[in-house]
Protein backbone atom coordinates (compact mmCIF):
# COMPACT_ATOMS: atom_id res chain seq x y z
CA UNK A 1 0.00 0.00 0.00
CA UNK A 2 1.01 3.57 -0.51
CA UNK A 3 1.90 5.34 2.64
CA UNK A 4 2.38 9.05 2.33
CA UNK A 5 3.93 10.82 -0.62
CA UNK A 6 7.38 11.96 -1.67
CA UNK A 7 8.99 14.98 -0.10
CA UNK A 8 8.69 17.34 -3.07
CA UNK A 9 5.05 16.39 -3.62
CA UNK A 10 4.41 16.86 0.07
CA UNK A 11 5.91 20.33 0.00
CA UNK A 12 3.84 21.24 -3.05
CA UNK A 13 0.69 20.05 -1.30
CA UNK A 14 1.68 21.99 1.78
CA UNK A 15 2.18 25.11 -0.35
CA UNK A 16 -1.36 24.67 -1.64
CA UNK A 17 -2.74 24.37 1.88
CA UNK A 18 -0.86 27.53 2.86
CA UNK A 19 -2.34 29.35 -0.15
CA UNK A 20 -5.81 28.44 1.06
CA UNK A 21 -5.36 29.27 4.72
CA UNK A 22 -2.66 31.92 5.29
CA UNK A 23 -4.49 34.82 3.54
CA UNK A 24 -7.47 34.37 5.85
CA UNK A 25 -5.30 34.39 8.98
CA UNK A 26 -3.49 37.52 7.80
CA UNK A 27 -6.73 39.31 6.97
CA UNK A 28 -8.22 38.58 10.40
CA UNK A 29 -5.07 39.80 12.18
CA UNK A 30 -4.86 42.89 9.96
CA UNK A 31 -8.48 43.77 10.71
CA UNK A 32 -7.41 44.63 14.28
CA UNK A 33 -4.53 46.81 13.08
CA UNK A 34 -4.66 50.30 14.57
CA UNK A 35 -2.53 51.76 11.76
CA UNK A 36 -3.96 52.79 8.43
CA UNK A 37 -1.56 51.15 5.97
CA UNK A 38 -2.59 47.49 6.35
CA UNK A 39 0.95 46.25 7.06
CA UNK A 40 1.71 42.92 8.65
CA UNK A 41 2.22 42.39 11.54
CA UNK A 42 0.25 45.25 13.13
CA UNK A 43 2.14 47.47 15.55
CA UNK A 44 -0.91 48.32 17.65
CA UNK A 45 -4.39 46.81 17.91
CA UNK A 46 -7.78 48.49 17.73
CA UNK A 47 -11.35 48.06 16.52
CA UNK A 48 -11.48 51.33 14.62
CA UNK A 49 -11.77 49.72 11.17
CA UNK A 50 -14.75 47.69 12.29
CA UNK A 51 -16.40 50.92 13.43
CA UNK A 52 -15.52 52.52 10.09
CA UNK A 53 -17.03 49.56 8.22
CA UNK A 54 -20.31 49.92 10.10
CA UNK A 55 -20.23 53.69 9.75
CA UNK A 56 -20.19 53.77 5.98
CA UNK A 57 -23.60 53.78 4.27
CA UNK A 58 -22.03 52.14 1.20
CA UNK A 59 -21.25 48.98 3.15
CA UNK A 60 -24.47 48.98 5.17
CA UNK A 61 -26.68 49.44 2.12
CA UNK A 62 -24.54 47.10 0.02
CA UNK A 63 -24.91 44.42 2.66
CA UNK A 64 -28.70 44.78 2.72
CA UNK A 65 -28.81 44.59 -1.09
CA UNK A 66 -26.60 41.49 -1.14
CA UNK A 67 -28.71 39.86 1.55
CA UNK A 68 -31.94 40.58 -0.36
CA UNK A 69 -30.59 39.22 -3.64
CA UNK A 70 -29.13 36.15 -1.93
CA UNK A 71 -32.34 35.25 -0.09
CA UNK A 72 -34.50 35.79 -3.17
CA UNK A 73 -32.27 33.93 -5.62
CA UNK A 74 -31.51 31.07 -3.20
CA UNK A 75 -35.23 30.50 -2.58
CA UNK A 76 -35.95 30.51 -6.29
CA UNK A 77 -32.96 28.30 -7.11
CA UNK A 78 -33.88 25.70 -4.48
CA UNK A 79 -37.48 25.51 -5.76
CA UNK A 80 -36.49 25.31 -9.43
CA UNK A 81 -33.49 23.07 -8.86
CA UNK A 82 -35.26 20.59 -6.59
CA UNK A 83 -38.11 20.16 -9.06
CA UNK A 84 -35.61 19.59 -11.85
CA UNK A 85 -33.58 17.13 -9.75
CA UNK A 86 -36.77 15.18 -9.11
CA UNK A 87 -37.56 14.87 -12.81
CA UNK A 88 -33.95 14.05 -13.71
CA UNK A 89 -33.57 11.25 -11.17
CA UNK A 90 -37.06 9.78 -10.90
CA UNK A 91 -38.25 9.89 -14.49
CA UNK A 92 -36.38 8.14 -17.28
CA UNK A 93 -36.82 9.89 -20.60
CA UNK A 94 -34.93 10.26 -23.85
CA UNK A 95 -32.64 13.28 -23.73
CA UNK A 96 -32.01 13.09 -20.01
CA UNK A 97 -28.23 13.33 -20.45
CA UNK A 98 -28.70 16.25 -22.82
CA UNK A 99 -30.89 18.00 -20.24
CA UNK A 100 -28.22 17.44 -17.59
CA UNK A 101 -25.55 18.97 -19.82
CA UNK A 102 -27.77 21.88 -20.81
CA UNK A 103 -28.51 22.72 -17.18
CA UNK A 104 -24.78 22.88 -16.40
CA UNK A 105 -24.08 25.33 -19.25
CA UNK A 106 -23.86 28.45 -17.03
CA UNK A 107 -20.92 26.87 -15.20
CA UNK A 108 -18.86 26.62 -18.40
CA UNK A 109 -18.98 30.29 -19.38
CA UNK A 110 -16.71 32.83 -17.64
CA UNK A 111 -18.94 35.00 -15.49
CA UNK A 112 -17.74 38.24 -17.03
CA UNK A 113 -19.36 37.08 -20.28
CA UNK A 114 -22.56 36.11 -18.50
CA UNK A 115 -22.63 39.48 -16.72
CA UNK A 116 -22.16 41.42 -19.94
CA UNK A 117 -24.80 39.28 -21.67
CA UNK A 118 -27.33 40.03 -18.94
CA UNK A 119 -26.53 43.73 -19.07
CA UNK A 120 -27.27 43.75 -22.80
CA UNK A 121 -30.42 41.64 -22.37
CA UNK A 122 -31.77 43.78 -19.53
CA UNK A 123 -31.01 47.01 -21.39
CA UNK A 124 -32.59 45.82 -24.64
CA UNK A 125 -35.87 44.74 -23.03
CA UNK A 126 -35.83 47.59 -20.49
CA UNK A 127 -36.18 45.19 -17.56
CA UNK A 128 -35.62 46.34 -13.99
CA UNK A 129 -31.94 45.86 -13.14
CA UNK A 130 -32.50 44.37 -9.70
CA UNK A 131 -34.87 41.76 -11.07
CA UNK A 132 -32.16 40.99 -13.63
CA UNK A 133 -29.64 40.42 -10.83
CA UNK A 134 -31.96 38.04 -8.99
CA UNK A 135 -32.75 36.08 -12.17
CA UNK A 136 -29.07 35.83 -13.14
CA UNK A 137 -28.00 34.75 -9.64
CA UNK A 138 -30.77 32.15 -9.66
CA UNK A 139 -29.59 30.80 -13.02
CA UNK A 140 -26.02 30.49 -11.72
CA UNK A 141 -27.16 28.62 -8.60
CA UNK A 142 -29.68 26.21 -10.17
CA UNK A 143 -27.05 23.77 -11.53
CA UNK A 144 -25.56 23.37 -8.07
CA UNK A 145 -28.96 22.79 -6.45
CA UNK A 146 -29.79 20.19 -9.11
CA UNK A 147 -26.54 18.35 -8.47
CA UNK A 148 -26.75 18.43 -4.66
CA UNK A 149 -30.39 17.33 -4.45
CA UNK A 150 -29.94 14.78 -7.26
CA UNK A 151 -27.07 13.18 -5.35
CA UNK A 152 -29.37 12.73 -2.36
CA UNK A 153 -32.22 11.40 -4.50
CA UNK A 154 -29.91 8.94 -6.27
CA UNK A 155 -28.62 7.70 -2.91
CA UNK A 156 -32.17 6.91 -1.82
CA UNK A 157 -34.00 3.85 -3.05
CA UNK A 158 -37.20 4.48 -4.98
CA UNK A 159 -38.72 1.48 -3.22
CA UNK A 160 -39.81 3.66 -0.29
CA UNK A 161 -41.86 5.83 -2.61
CA UNK A 162 -43.17 2.79 -4.49
CA UNK A 163 -44.17 1.12 -1.24
CA UNK A 164 -46.13 4.20 -0.19
CA UNK A 165 -47.99 4.28 -3.48
CA UNK A 166 -48.66 0.53 -3.41
CA UNK A 167 -50.22 1.06 0.01
CA UNK A 168 -52.60 3.59 -1.51
CA UNK A 169 -50.88 6.94 -1.07
CA UNK A 170 -51.43 9.41 -3.88
CA UNK A 171 -48.48 10.95 -5.72
CA UNK A 172 -48.85 14.16 -3.74
CA UNK A 173 -49.03 12.35 -0.40
CA UNK A 174 -45.95 10.32 -1.30
CA UNK A 175 -44.11 13.46 -2.24
CA UNK A 176 -45.06 15.26 0.97
CA UNK A 177 -44.69 12.44 3.47
CA UNK A 178 -41.85 10.37 1.98
CA UNK A 179 -39.75 12.14 -0.63
CA UNK A 180 -39.57 15.66 0.79
CA UNK A 181 -38.51 14.54 4.29
CA UNK A 182 -35.76 12.43 2.69
CA UNK A 183 -34.35 15.30 0.65
CA UNK A 184 -35.10 18.12 3.13
CA UNK A 185 -31.54 18.25 4.50
CA UNK A 186 -30.00 18.32 1.04
CA UNK A 187 -32.41 21.12 0.07
CA UNK A 188 -31.23 23.23 3.02
CA UNK A 189 -27.60 22.47 2.16
CA UNK A 190 -28.27 23.44 -1.47
CA UNK A 191 -30.00 26.61 -0.27
CA UNK A 192 -26.99 27.67 1.78
CA UNK A 193 -24.77 26.93 -1.21
CA UNK A 194 -27.01 28.98 -3.51
CA UNK A 195 -27.03 31.81 -0.96
CA UNK A 196 -23.22 31.79 -0.90
CA UNK A 197 -23.05 31.87 -4.71
CA UNK A 198 -25.28 34.92 -4.89
CA UNK A 199 -23.64 36.69 -1.96
CA UNK A 200 -20.19 36.12 -3.47
CA UNK A 201 -21.21 37.16 -6.96
CA UNK A 202 -19.36 40.11 -8.37
CA UNK A 203 -19.58 39.92 -12.14
CA UNK A 204 -23.34 39.95 -12.55
CA UNK A 205 -23.84 42.55 -9.86
CA UNK A 206 -21.16 44.93 -11.11
CA UNK A 207 -22.82 45.09 -14.54
CA UNK A 208 -26.39 45.40 -13.33
CA UNK A 209 -26.17 47.30 -10.04
CA UNK A 210 -27.04 50.96 -10.30
CA UNK A 211 -25.98 53.77 -7.97
CA UNK A 212 -25.56 51.43 -5.02
CA UNK A 213 -23.70 48.17 -5.58
CA UNK A 214 -23.90 44.90 -3.68
CA UNK A 215 -21.41 44.39 -0.85
CA UNK A 216 -18.69 42.81 -3.07
CA UNK A 217 -19.05 45.67 -5.56
CA UNK A 218 -18.78 48.29 -2.79
CA UNK A 219 -15.77 46.45 -1.32
CA UNK A 220 -14.14 46.50 -4.77
CA UNK A 221 -14.77 50.22 -5.17
CA UNK A 222 -13.32 50.97 -1.73
CA UNK A 223 -10.32 48.63 -2.08
CA UNK A 224 -9.33 50.26 -5.37
CA UNK A 225 -9.00 53.69 -3.83
CA UNK A 226 -8.32 53.22 -0.11
CA UNK A 227 -5.48 51.30 1.50
CA UNK A 228 -6.69 51.14 5.08
CA UNK A 229 -7.79 47.87 6.79
CA UNK A 230 -11.55 48.58 6.64
CA UNK A 231 -11.84 45.85 4.00
CA UNK A 232 -9.92 43.53 6.32
CA UNK A 233 -12.52 44.15 9.04
CA UNK A 234 -15.40 43.38 6.65
CA UNK A 235 -13.53 40.34 5.32
CA UNK A 236 -13.00 39.01 8.85
CA UNK A 237 -16.73 39.24 9.55
CA UNK A 238 -17.59 37.59 6.23
CA UNK A 239 -15.09 34.79 6.91
CA UNK A 240 -16.91 34.10 10.16
CA UNK A 241 -20.24 33.90 8.26
CA UNK A 242 -18.65 31.59 5.68
CA UNK A 243 -17.34 29.29 8.41
CA UNK A 244 -20.81 29.08 9.99
CA UNK A 245 -22.34 28.34 6.56
CA UNK A 246 -19.81 25.60 5.81
CA UNK A 247 -20.25 24.15 9.30
CA UNK A 248 -24.01 23.90 8.78
CA UNK A 249 -23.66 22.36 5.32
CA UNK A 250 -21.15 19.77 6.54
CA UNK A 251 -23.72 18.61 9.09
CA UNK A 252 -26.48 18.35 6.51
CA UNK A 253 -24.64 16.82 3.57
CA UNK A 254 -21.72 14.46 3.01
CA UNK A 255 -18.62 16.52 2.16
CA UNK A 256 -17.11 14.01 -0.26
CA UNK A 257 -20.33 13.96 -2.26
CA UNK A 258 -20.40 17.76 -2.15
CA UNK A 259 -16.81 17.85 -3.45
CA UNK A 260 -17.82 15.55 -6.30
CA UNK A 261 -20.91 17.47 -7.37
CA UNK A 262 -19.74 21.06 -6.95
CA UNK A 263 -16.58 20.93 -9.00
Amino acid at each position, binding site marked *: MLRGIGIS*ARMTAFLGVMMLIVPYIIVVVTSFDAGSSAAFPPAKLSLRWYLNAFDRPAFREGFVLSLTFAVASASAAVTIGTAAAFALTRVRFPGRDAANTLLAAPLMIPQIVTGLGFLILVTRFKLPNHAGIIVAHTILAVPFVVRIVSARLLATSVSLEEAAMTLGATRLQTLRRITLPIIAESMVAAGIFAFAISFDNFYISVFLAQTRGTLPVEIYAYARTEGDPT*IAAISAMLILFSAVALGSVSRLFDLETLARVTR
Partner: protein
Amino acid sequence: MTDMAAAAPRGRLVPLLPALICTAVFIAALSSLLVDSLVSGGTWSLQHYRRFVSDPVYFAYLLRSIRVGVFTTIGAIVVGYAMAYWMAHGSALVRRTLLLLTIFQFFTVTITKVYAILLVLGNNGLINRALIALGLRDTPLPLVNNELGVVIGLIAASLPFAVLPIFSTMMGMRMSLIEAAATLGANRMIVFRRIILPLSMPGVVAGAVLVFLYSLGGLITPALIGGGFVDLIASFSYEQALLLSNPGFAAAGAVVTLSAAFLMVLGLELVHRRLRREP
Protein backbone atom coordinates in the same frame (compact mmCIF):
# COMPACT_ATOMS: atom_id res chain seq x y z
CA MET B 1 -37.65 2.68 -10.90
CA THR B 2 -38.42 0.76 -14.07
CA ASP B 3 -42.11 0.65 -13.23
CA MET B 4 -42.27 4.37 -12.56
CA ALA B 5 -40.09 5.09 -15.54
CA ALA B 6 -42.08 2.91 -17.90
CA ALA B 7 -45.16 4.87 -17.01
CA ALA B 8 -43.49 8.22 -17.64
CA PRO B 9 -46.09 10.41 -19.26
CA ARG B 10 -45.09 13.84 -20.52
CA GLY B 11 -46.72 15.46 -17.49
CA ARG B 12 -44.07 14.05 -15.22
CA LEU B 13 -41.45 16.19 -16.90
CA VAL B 14 -43.23 19.42 -15.96
CA PRO B 15 -40.96 19.90 -12.90
CA LEU B 16 -38.03 20.18 -15.30
CA LEU B 17 -39.60 23.11 -17.10
CA PRO B 18 -38.58 26.02 -14.82
CA ALA B 19 -34.94 24.90 -14.90
CA LEU B 20 -35.03 24.68 -18.68
CA ILE B 21 -36.53 28.17 -18.81
CA CYS B 22 -33.54 29.34 -16.74
CA THR B 23 -31.20 27.82 -19.31
CA ALA B 24 -33.22 29.45 -22.09
CA VAL B 25 -32.86 32.88 -20.43
CA PHE B 26 -29.15 32.23 -20.04
CA ILE B 27 -28.86 31.38 -23.72
CA ALA B 28 -30.89 34.49 -24.56
CA ALA B 29 -28.38 36.61 -22.62
CA LEU B 30 -25.44 35.06 -24.46
CA SER B 31 -27.25 35.46 -27.79
CA SER B 32 -27.93 39.15 -27.21
CA LEU B 33 -24.23 39.54 -26.43
CA LEU B 34 -23.40 37.86 -29.73
CA VAL B 35 -25.94 39.99 -31.63
CA ASP B 36 -24.63 43.22 -30.07
CA SER B 37 -21.09 42.31 -31.07
CA LEU B 38 -22.25 41.97 -34.68
CA VAL B 39 -24.13 45.25 -34.84
CA SER B 40 -22.41 48.56 -35.39
CA GLY B 41 -24.04 51.86 -36.27
CA GLY B 42 -27.45 50.21 -36.50
CA THR B 43 -26.54 47.60 -39.12
CA TRP B 44 -24.93 44.18 -39.16
CA SER B 45 -21.20 44.51 -39.40
CA LEU B 46 -17.93 42.96 -38.32
CA GLN B 47 -16.61 46.40 -37.41
CA HIS B 48 -16.16 45.60 -33.68
CA TYR B 49 -14.22 42.44 -34.46
CA ARG B 50 -12.05 44.18 -37.03
CA ARG B 51 -11.24 46.90 -34.54
CA PHE B 52 -10.44 44.43 -31.75
CA VAL B 53 -8.14 42.26 -33.88
CA SER B 54 -6.37 45.05 -35.76
CA ASP B 55 -5.52 47.35 -32.85
CA PRO B 56 -2.49 45.97 -30.98
CA VAL B 57 -3.65 47.73 -27.79
CA TYR B 58 -6.84 45.67 -27.72
CA PHE B 59 -5.36 42.48 -29.09
CA ALA B 60 -2.79 42.62 -26.28
CA TYR B 61 -5.62 41.98 -23.81
CA LEU B 62 -6.32 38.65 -25.53
CA LEU B 63 -2.67 37.57 -25.65
CA ARG B 64 -2.09 38.58 -22.03
CA SER B 65 -5.24 36.78 -20.89
CA ILE B 66 -4.20 33.55 -22.58
CA ARG B 67 -0.63 33.77 -21.29
CA VAL B 68 -1.77 34.44 -17.70
CA GLY B 69 -4.43 31.73 -18.08
CA VAL B 70 -1.93 29.11 -19.22
CA PHE B 71 0.54 29.85 -16.40
CA THR B 72 -2.27 29.92 -13.84
CA THR B 73 -3.60 26.59 -15.11
CA ILE B 74 -0.20 24.90 -14.98
CA GLY B 75 0.46 26.22 -11.47
CA ALA B 76 -2.97 25.37 -10.12
CA ILE B 77 -2.86 21.85 -11.59
CA VAL B 78 0.60 21.08 -10.16
CA VAL B 79 -0.27 22.37 -6.69
CA GLY B 80 -3.83 21.02 -6.86
CA TYR B 81 -2.63 17.58 -7.96
CA ALA B 82 -0.30 17.30 -4.97
CA MET B 83 -3.11 18.40 -2.64
CA ALA B 84 -5.63 16.00 -4.18
CA TYR B 85 -3.13 13.16 -3.89
CA TRP B 86 -2.54 13.95 -0.25
CA MET B 87 -6.30 14.13 0.35
CA ALA B 88 -7.01 10.84 -1.40
CA HIS B 89 -4.16 8.87 0.15
CA GLY B 90 -3.75 10.57 3.52
CA SER B 91 -5.42 9.67 6.81
CA ALA B 92 -9.13 10.22 7.39
CA LEU B 93 -8.31 13.32 9.44
CA VAL B 94 -6.12 14.79 6.67
CA ARG B 95 -8.83 14.08 4.12
CA ARG B 96 -11.59 15.71 6.13
CA THR B 97 -9.49 18.75 7.06
CA LEU B 98 -8.31 19.39 3.50
CA LEU B 99 -11.80 18.75 2.13
CA LEU B 100 -13.29 21.28 4.56
CA LEU B 101 -10.59 23.80 3.69
CA THR B 102 -11.11 23.34 -0.06
CA ILE B 103 -14.91 23.51 0.06
CA PHE B 104 -14.64 26.50 2.41
CA GLN B 105 -13.37 28.49 -0.58
CA PHE B 106 -16.79 28.13 -2.24
CA PHE B 107 -18.46 29.73 0.75
CA THR B 108 -16.15 32.71 1.03
CA VAL B 109 -16.55 35.98 -0.82
CA THR B 110 -13.99 36.05 -3.65
CA ILE B 111 -13.14 39.71 -3.28
CA THR B 112 -12.18 39.27 0.37
CA LYS B 113 -9.94 36.38 -0.66
CA VAL B 114 -8.18 38.45 -3.31
CA TYR B 115 -7.76 41.29 -0.82
CA ALA B 116 -6.31 38.82 1.68
CA ILE B 117 -3.84 37.50 -0.91
CA LEU B 118 -2.82 41.11 -1.57
CA LEU B 119 -2.00 41.44 2.14
CA VAL B 120 0.35 38.46 1.78
CA LEU B 121 2.05 39.49 -1.48
CA GLY B 122 2.14 43.28 -1.15
CA ASN B 123 5.25 45.41 -0.59
CA ASN B 124 4.25 45.71 3.06
CA GLY B 125 2.83 42.20 3.09
CA LEU B 126 3.70 39.07 5.00
CA ILE B 127 6.24 37.65 2.53
CA ASN B 128 8.18 40.90 2.03
CA ARG B 129 8.13 41.81 5.72
CA ALA B 130 9.51 38.36 6.51
CA LEU B 131 12.19 38.51 3.78
CA ILE B 132 13.38 41.92 4.95
CA ALA B 133 13.23 41.01 8.64
CA LEU B 134 15.32 37.90 7.94
CA GLY B 135 17.84 40.02 6.07
CA LEU B 136 17.31 38.08 2.83
CA ARG B 137 16.42 41.22 0.91
CA ASP B 138 16.89 44.96 1.31
CA THR B 139 14.03 46.00 -0.95
CA PRO B 140 10.62 44.31 -1.32
CA LEU B 141 10.37 41.51 -3.86
CA PRO B 142 8.03 42.77 -6.61
CA LEU B 143 5.08 40.41 -6.14
CA VAL B 144 2.31 42.88 -6.91
CA ASN B 145 1.52 45.15 -9.86
CA ASN B 146 2.97 42.56 -12.24
CA GLU B 147 2.00 39.35 -14.05
CA LEU B 148 3.72 37.11 -11.51
CA GLY B 149 1.53 38.49 -8.72
CA VAL B 150 -1.63 38.12 -10.80
CA VAL B 151 -0.74 34.51 -11.64
CA ILE B 152 -0.01 33.69 -7.98
CA GLY B 153 -3.28 35.35 -6.94
CA LEU B 154 -5.28 33.50 -9.60
CA ILE B 155 -3.65 30.18 -8.62
CA ALA B 156 -4.60 30.70 -4.99
CA ALA B 157 -8.14 31.72 -5.94
CA SER B 158 -8.74 28.92 -8.45
CA LEU B 159 -7.03 26.09 -6.55
CA PRO B 160 -10.31 24.44 -5.43
CA PHE B 161 -11.37 24.08 -9.09
CA ALA B 162 -8.21 22.03 -9.69
CA VAL B 163 -8.26 20.04 -6.44
CA LEU B 164 -11.85 18.78 -6.44
CA PRO B 165 -12.07 17.11 -9.89
CA ILE B 166 -8.68 15.43 -9.42
CA PHE B 167 -9.63 14.31 -5.92
CA SER B 168 -12.91 12.86 -7.28
CA THR B 169 -11.18 10.76 -9.93
CA MET B 170 -8.63 9.55 -7.39
CA MET B 171 -11.39 8.49 -5.01
CA GLY B 172 -13.09 6.68 -7.89
CA MET B 173 -9.98 4.57 -8.56
CA ARG B 174 -10.12 1.03 -7.38
CA MET B 175 -7.62 0.64 -4.56
CA SER B 176 -7.26 -3.02 -5.53
CA LEU B 177 -5.43 -1.98 -8.72
CA ILE B 178 -2.86 -0.04 -6.74
CA GLU B 179 -2.52 -2.81 -4.18
CA ALA B 180 -2.10 -5.44 -6.89
CA ALA B 181 0.68 -3.43 -8.53
CA ALA B 182 2.40 -2.96 -5.19
CA THR B 183 2.08 -6.68 -4.41
CA LEU B 184 3.59 -7.52 -7.78
CA GLY B 185 6.65 -5.51 -6.85
CA ALA B 186 6.00 -2.11 -8.42
CA ASN B 187 7.60 0.65 -6.39
CA ARG B 188 5.82 3.86 -5.51
CA MET B 189 7.09 5.78 -8.51
CA ILE B 190 6.00 3.06 -10.95
CA VAL B 191 2.57 2.77 -9.34
CA PHE B 192 2.20 6.53 -9.65
CA ARG B 193 3.41 6.78 -13.25
CA ARG B 194 1.68 3.70 -14.62
CA ILE B 195 -1.58 3.63 -12.66
CA ILE B 196 -2.47 6.72 -10.64
CA LEU B 197 -1.39 9.40 -13.11
CA PRO B 198 -3.08 7.92 -16.22
CA LEU B 199 -6.28 7.11 -14.32
CA SER B 200 -6.49 10.60 -12.85
CA MET B 201 -6.06 12.36 -16.21
CA PRO B 202 -9.82 12.96 -16.69
CA GLY B 203 -9.79 14.90 -13.42
CA VAL B 204 -6.71 16.84 -14.50
CA VAL B 205 -8.34 17.81 -17.80
CA ALA B 206 -11.61 18.79 -16.10
CA GLY B 207 -9.71 20.84 -13.51
CA ALA B 208 -7.52 22.51 -16.14
CA VAL B 209 -10.58 23.58 -18.13
CA LEU B 210 -12.29 25.05 -15.06
CA VAL B 211 -9.16 26.91 -13.89
CA PHE B 212 -8.44 28.25 -17.38
CA LEU B 213 -11.97 29.56 -17.89
CA TYR B 214 -11.95 31.01 -14.37
CA SER B 215 -8.68 32.88 -14.89
CA LEU B 216 -9.84 34.28 -18.26
CA GLY B 217 -12.83 35.86 -16.55
CA GLY B 218 -10.71 37.43 -13.83
CA LEU B 219 -11.27 41.11 -13.15
CA ILE B 220 -10.77 41.50 -9.40
CA THR B 221 -7.33 39.87 -9.20
CA PRO B 222 -5.79 41.92 -12.04
CA ALA B 223 -7.28 45.10 -10.57
CA LEU B 224 -6.27 44.60 -6.93
CA ILE B 225 -3.07 42.53 -7.21
CA GLY B 226 -2.05 43.63 -10.71
CA GLY B 227 -2.78 47.24 -9.79
CA GLY B 228 -4.27 47.83 -13.24
CA PHE B 229 -0.98 47.00 -14.97
CA VAL B 230 -1.98 43.46 -15.96
CA ASP B 231 -5.54 43.98 -17.15
CA LEU B 232 -7.06 40.90 -18.75
CA ILE B 233 -9.91 40.59 -21.19
CA ALA B 234 -12.49 40.89 -18.39
CA SER B 235 -11.15 44.35 -17.55
CA PHE B 236 -11.42 45.30 -21.23
CA SER B 237 -15.07 44.21 -21.43
CA TYR B 238 -15.86 45.93 -18.14
CA GLU B 239 -14.30 49.22 -19.19
CA GLN B 240 -15.77 49.25 -22.69
CA ALA B 241 -19.26 48.34 -21.52
CA LEU B 242 -19.60 50.37 -18.33
CA LEU B 243 -17.11 53.21 -18.46
CA LEU B 244 -17.13 53.89 -22.23
CA SER B 245 -20.73 52.79 -22.93
CA ASN B 246 -19.66 50.62 -25.83
CA PRO B 247 -21.25 47.22 -25.08
CA GLY B 248 -20.97 46.02 -28.68
CA PHE B 249 -17.19 46.38 -28.72
CA ALA B 250 -16.99 44.85 -25.23
CA ALA B 251 -19.06 41.92 -26.49
CA ALA B 252 -16.82 41.41 -29.52
CA GLY B 253 -13.77 41.18 -27.27
CA ALA B 254 -15.56 38.70 -25.03
CA VAL B 255 -16.63 36.56 -28.00
CA VAL B 256 -13.11 36.47 -29.48
CA THR B 257 -11.63 35.47 -26.13
CA LEU B 258 -14.29 32.89 -25.47
CA SER B 259 -13.73 31.35 -28.90
CA ALA B 260 -9.98 31.23 -28.31
CA ALA B 261 -10.62 29.65 -24.90
CA PHE B 262 -12.91 26.98 -26.35
CA LEU B 263 -10.41 26.19 -29.09
CA MET B 264 -7.75 25.63 -26.42
CA VAL B 265 -10.11 23.52 -24.32
CA LEU B 266 -10.99 21.48 -27.41
CA GLY B 267 -7.30 21.01 -28.16
CA LEU B 268 -6.70 19.80 -24.60
CA GLU B 269 -9.58 17.32 -24.93
CA LEU B 270 -8.23 15.98 -28.23
CA VAL B 271 -4.72 15.51 -26.82
CA HIS B 272 -6.21 13.80 -23.81
CA ARG B 273 -8.23 11.40 -25.99
CA ARG B 274 -5.22 10.62 -28.16
CA LEU B 275 -3.17 9.84 -25.06
CA ARG B 276 -5.85 7.57 -23.71
CA ARG B 277 -6.03 5.55 -26.88
CA GLU B 278 -2.27 4.89 -26.91
CA PRO B 279 -1.27 4.24 -23.33
